[in-house]
């Protein structure tokens, strides 16, 4: 779960980490009043979307009066912001953060993250903060220092890190304190990433997080109901949310073949095969082992309701708790309920594959039964292209 900037900063402030004073605004008037109430002349007006790369995409505007803040907010709100991290659809800007423009002496890059390859929590720090740090790093214009948290999260060698970053000796103790605060925030919230970039060192010699990104481990949200409450799913795909509530992992894609699988690996394999056969998937739908036939029916209904879907490919290898007949029942119920149909190519293997064929007959479902995977894929591609305009 990606927190937005204002949410990240609120969370970090609870751990004693300094952030610029600012206010969330839903309208231009709000932004103007907010800037005035905070006594800000120079301020930054920042689009709140859950992705990075906003600065380069004009999602951050520097202004020098409350009136200008209002005007900038009016321009940003209602716009769709596309950055290199949002994907082509971008995000609708519904809120902006109006924030004090902080005078910085210099800025740093600082992040805490899980290094999955080494199964460690690592702190990464760079001597300069910037939005294009990735490019600068690749071209050798800057560097990143690394510190590994010892088991249990113990923090050592902060002094050496401060030296490597070239920090003034007077800043070392406050830098160590900041790292400690970050570490605690990271661990207490099951974060997988906290990134402060840029992290300003002010003329007064304090550290202030000018931007903050936090990613929380979705698998740990059961421990953090307070964070779940922050989720703003207005920008999420309604279909994806509906599928999620029925034990289905669903990702929308832009093709015309509806894809239903059980398991992520089998799903990725199926998408690869569809592309290899010159077809285009409309979605990725993975039935989790906990899904019931009713859940599966809801999933199929989502595909049948989607006018872009010209054929449906079901590629299932039945296991113990999720045998093939549950999928067959789900499809049967969906076709009965919606009264809709599409050419549906079914490739079933594993537990209860035979019984599933019997269930299809019982429901009166017309499906195209293909015993082999490649045959099923090519058939689904053929059926879709037979029903589409030439591509």
């Amino acid at each position, binding site marked *: 779960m*990606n927190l937005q900037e204002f949410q990240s900063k609120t969370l970090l402030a609870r751990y004693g980490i300094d952030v610029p004073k600012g206010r969330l605004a839903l309208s231009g008037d709000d932004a103007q009043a907010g800037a005035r109430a905070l006594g800000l002349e120079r301020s930054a007006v920042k689009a709140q979307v*859950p*992705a*990075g790369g906003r600065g380069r995409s004009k999602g951050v505007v520097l202004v020098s009066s409350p009136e200008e803040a209002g005007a900038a907010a009016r321009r940003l709100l209602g716009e769709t912001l596309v950055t290199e*991290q*949002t*994907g082509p659809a971008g995000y609708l800007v519904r809120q902006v953060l109006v924030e004090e423009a902080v005078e910085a002496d210099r800025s740093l890059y600082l*992040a805490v*993250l*899980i*290094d*999955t*390859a080494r*199964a*460690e929590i*690592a702190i990464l720090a760079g001597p300069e903060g910037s939005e294009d*740090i*990735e490019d600068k790093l690749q071209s050798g214009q800057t560097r*990143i220092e690394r510190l590994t948290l010892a*088991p249990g999260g113990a923090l050592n060698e902060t002094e050496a890190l401060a030296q490597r970053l070239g920090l003034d000796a007077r800043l070392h103790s406050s830098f160590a304190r900041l790292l400690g605060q970050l570490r605690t925030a990271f*661990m207490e919230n*099951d974060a*997988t*990433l906290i*990134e402060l*970039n840029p992290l300003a060192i002010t003329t007064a010699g304090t550290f202030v997080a000018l931007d903050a*990104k936090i*990613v929380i*481990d979705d*698998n*740990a949200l*059961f*421990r953090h109901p307070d964070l779940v409450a922050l989720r703003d799913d207005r920008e999420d795909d309604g279909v994806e949310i509906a599928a999620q509530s029925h034990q289905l992992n669903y*990702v*929308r*894609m832009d093709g015309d073949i509806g894809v239903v*699988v*059980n*398991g*992520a*690996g*089998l*799903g*990725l*394999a*199926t*998408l*690869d*095969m569809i*592309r290899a056969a010159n077809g285009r998937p409309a979605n*990725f739908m993975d039935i989790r082992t906990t899904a019931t036939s009713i859940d599966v029916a809801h999933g199929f209904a989502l595909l049948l309701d989607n006018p872009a879907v010209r054929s449906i490919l079901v590629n299932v*290898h*039945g*296991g*113990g*708790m999720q045998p093939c007949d549950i999928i067959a029942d789900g499809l049967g119920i969906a076709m009965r309920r919606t009264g809709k149909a599409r050419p549906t190519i079914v490739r079933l*293997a*594993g537990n209860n594959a035979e019984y599933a064929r019997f269930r299809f007959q019982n429901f009166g479902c017309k499906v195209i039964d293909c015993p082999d*995977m*490649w045959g099923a894929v090519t058939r689904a591609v053929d059926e879709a292209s037979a029903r589409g305009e030439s591509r």
Partner: protein
Amino acid sequence: MSILVDADTRVICQGMTGRAGTHYSAAMIAYGTRVVGGVRPGRGGSRHLGLPVFDTVASAKADTGANASMVFVPPENAAAAMIEAIEAEMPLVVALTERVPLQDMIRVRDALKHGTTTLIGPNSQGVLAPGVCKIGVMATGGERSGHIGILSRSASLTSEVTAQVSAAGLGQSTTVGIGGDAIHGLSMRACFELFLADPETHGVVVVGEIGGIEEEELADFIADSRPDMPVVALIVGRHAPERRRMGHSGAFIEGARNDAAGKIRALENAGVIIAESPHLVGETMQRALLIEA
């Protein structure tokens, strides 16, 4: 012969009394696996599926002589269950649980450093030595006994690939689902080394996917060690849906080395034969063995 398990493997199930634990324990018993008991704190002294239930892994191990444990407890308690088994010095732990938090897995990996346990998973489909021992949730019926090792990061694709290898007329020494999570126990490379050391394994099928660097690590190992058996790899996710990214840091750690094309290139350079499509794994291995022979 098989790796990790054999006819002497005696299994307990942590979480046997739950719905899934009951279902899969029963299926394992039906397959012929020597399931010798279960663990469920608070239920010690009772019986389930006709087997004794214990409060702790240590007491179950002492009483039954178990040398393997299957972890089938919910995500919130899964790490504690794995650590309990590691501390009880269970030689093999197979964790099936999905959605274990990453920070919990960092603690588990730390416990592994101080113990003697081999951990498979979490989010593993299990370990299957055809006709000998099944620990896990995989569909059976498609497997057959033979000389191909299968090592897979994907749970769902494992049964598929196993059935395909059988359909190509090749049996398996062992199929191992090492687990799809970013942080897990036995690595691809370590599992490959077990197959390499097994005289009955004459070829290995590797099923990998996008993300992480394990395929690249395996490629480096194969390039160095030049194994005298064919290795066929299937890497899925060439056309995975795009994921939205938050910050820059992931790239600093993993670099560009985790897309499908990079993994395929690394393995190919190491002399691994790439199965061009998921449906070609079985016949690719069949051809590779003929060339070898």
